[in-house]
């Protein structure tokens, strides 16, 4: 039952993250980096929900791969988990940057510097979501459920 509560909280946090990525007044992506012209374009071109979805998928996907695909006693140490977190924290901003750049280019816009700065947030959000996803799903892993910290 305790594990199910972790999972429900993890999902609630993730859904809240997604909702706060779609809103106008308070948008989680505008907390740490804000450049009016750049952020307005992101909002008008409906990019926030996609960026959020990519981050969620990479984070939860990374956790799922670690706990259920890798799922090996050979990789059940905390630094193996940290390595996957590192991969997630790099992969998510790279994918988001490629998406950003493609949409901006299709609309004749140029925001290279701003996009790089903006994607620094994605590193943070992807890492946080990976931790959330890890604590949501690790309990059902046969070999890695004690990673990163034994319970």
């Amino acid at each position, binding site marked *: 039952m305790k594990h199910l509560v972790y999972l429900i909280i993890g999902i609630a946090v993730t*859904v809240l993250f*997604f909702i706060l990525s779609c809103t*106008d007044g308070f948008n989680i992506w505008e907390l740490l980096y804000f450049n009016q*012209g750049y952020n307005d374009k992101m*909002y008008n071109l409906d990019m926030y*929900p996609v960026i959020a979805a990519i981050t969620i998928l990479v984070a939860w996907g990374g956790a799922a791969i670690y706990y259920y695909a890798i799922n090996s006693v050979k990789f059940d140490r905390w630094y193996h988990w940290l390595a996957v977190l590192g991969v997630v924290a790099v992969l998510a901003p790279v994918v988001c940057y490629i998406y950003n750049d493609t949409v901006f280019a299709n*609309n004749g816009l*140029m925001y290279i510097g701003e996009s790089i700065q903006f994607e620094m947030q994605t590193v943070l959000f992807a890492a946080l979501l990976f931790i959330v996803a890890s604590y949501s*799903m690790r309990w059902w892993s046969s070999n890695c459920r004690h990673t990163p910290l034994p319970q």
Partner: protein
Amino acid sequence: MRRLPLLVMMCVLLAGLAACGGHGKLDKAVRSVLVSGDTTRAAYDSLCSLVTENPGKYSDLLTPEGKVDHKKMADFIDKIGSQLRPPMHWDTRPYGGVDDLSLTVYFERSGSMVPYDQRGGGGQLKKAVNDLINHFPAGSKVDINIVNDGIYPYQHTVDEFLKDRDIYQSTAGIGDASYTDFQLIFNKILEAQRPGNVSVLVSDLIYSPKDTRGVSLDKIFNEENSLATRAFAKYKGKSVVVQQLMGDFSGKYYPYNGVPFEYSGKRPFYLVIIADNDAMDQLAQDKRYSGVLDAPAVSNSYRFNQSTSEVECRVLPEWKDNAGRFRVKHGDGIVLAKCDGDRQTGKLCFSLAANLGSLMKDDAMLTDVSNYEVKSIDGYTLTVQPIDQSMVTANNKEYLEGMTHVLTLVGDLKSPRDEVHIALRNELPAWVRQSSSTSDTSAGGSFSTTTLGLEQLLGGMFDAMKGGSNYFDIIINLQR
């Protein structure tokens, strides 16, 4: 089996994300049109097709007959536009359910007008009228009348009028060409005007009533002023645009209480365009009528408004003159939050793109900051410049789209909160005074560029149609 709760909850997560995400197909299409600036008839038609192809889904946008309800469609587009940054408005009236405007030309045929269309002259007067007719879409209803002591229908077709090389010759003998009764003409025009009609008086705007022997010029000016006020004050909801053009004049000029003399050279003439407010707005905004109000031959123009106008404006986040930092708050009104002065100078400088085109004032007036009133605690100063293509970049295009001027404000950011008021004062433009004369007895001086008593006539119209003390008001709230 033991992973079943995990799988179920993952499905819940995906369903949650899908439910939160994005807009319907029509929402997305409208958003895309507004963001890309593709606000054309073709884009509007494709949106309508989307609605008619999915009658079940978009039944609230259809009439009981299954046709697109253009009013509801406009509201829907406005709702999506208001959610954008900056909020966008697309005037779709020209594309759906709005009838074409009709045109009625009132061509003055008094003695003083005949020299404007001599065979040896440049024919600017006739060309201006022909252009006016041609700028209305093919199929629009066009009527032509001849005016002097009264209003007389032109007896030929519009095509014959366009081809007529000697319009005063072919209309000789119509009415009494020795005087022009503006009171009667304005009253008849305003009385005859129906919704959707645009009436245009082509005239030199020289008031020449009957039997003025021994009457002083001041008395005539006062009479002229009063009759203009009286005629227009009676009819509410009208907009009038007066355009000044220059034409070749060759022939006898009849001065007021003076000896007629021969004159060859330039002289001003005028198009007085009269329509209901909404018809005038349509004329200004509907691209099908482009050229009517912005003809290149027009040297000066002025729109008489009856009320303070709403001016669309957007804060420019990326602008060369911006100094300091601010964040535009989205919602009602213009609010700049988290304002911070420039690190070196302490000044805050921000710019707004505004659509002043709908006011139909000439550029000299709009860019002269002495015509504006700017109030604020920190003493912000204003500069106004017209937008030209060299200013438009891919990144600022959507802010400048449909806008005509950039209003830049600079001030020392000292107060924690400030409210900057910008107002364009409602005054008769300088060109009216500069184009008006109090004597026309000789061809010397400014005779070639002035009209006797113009200021009094247009001043009378101005008094009748002056709605408020300002053409528009903009309030910008600044918060630190």
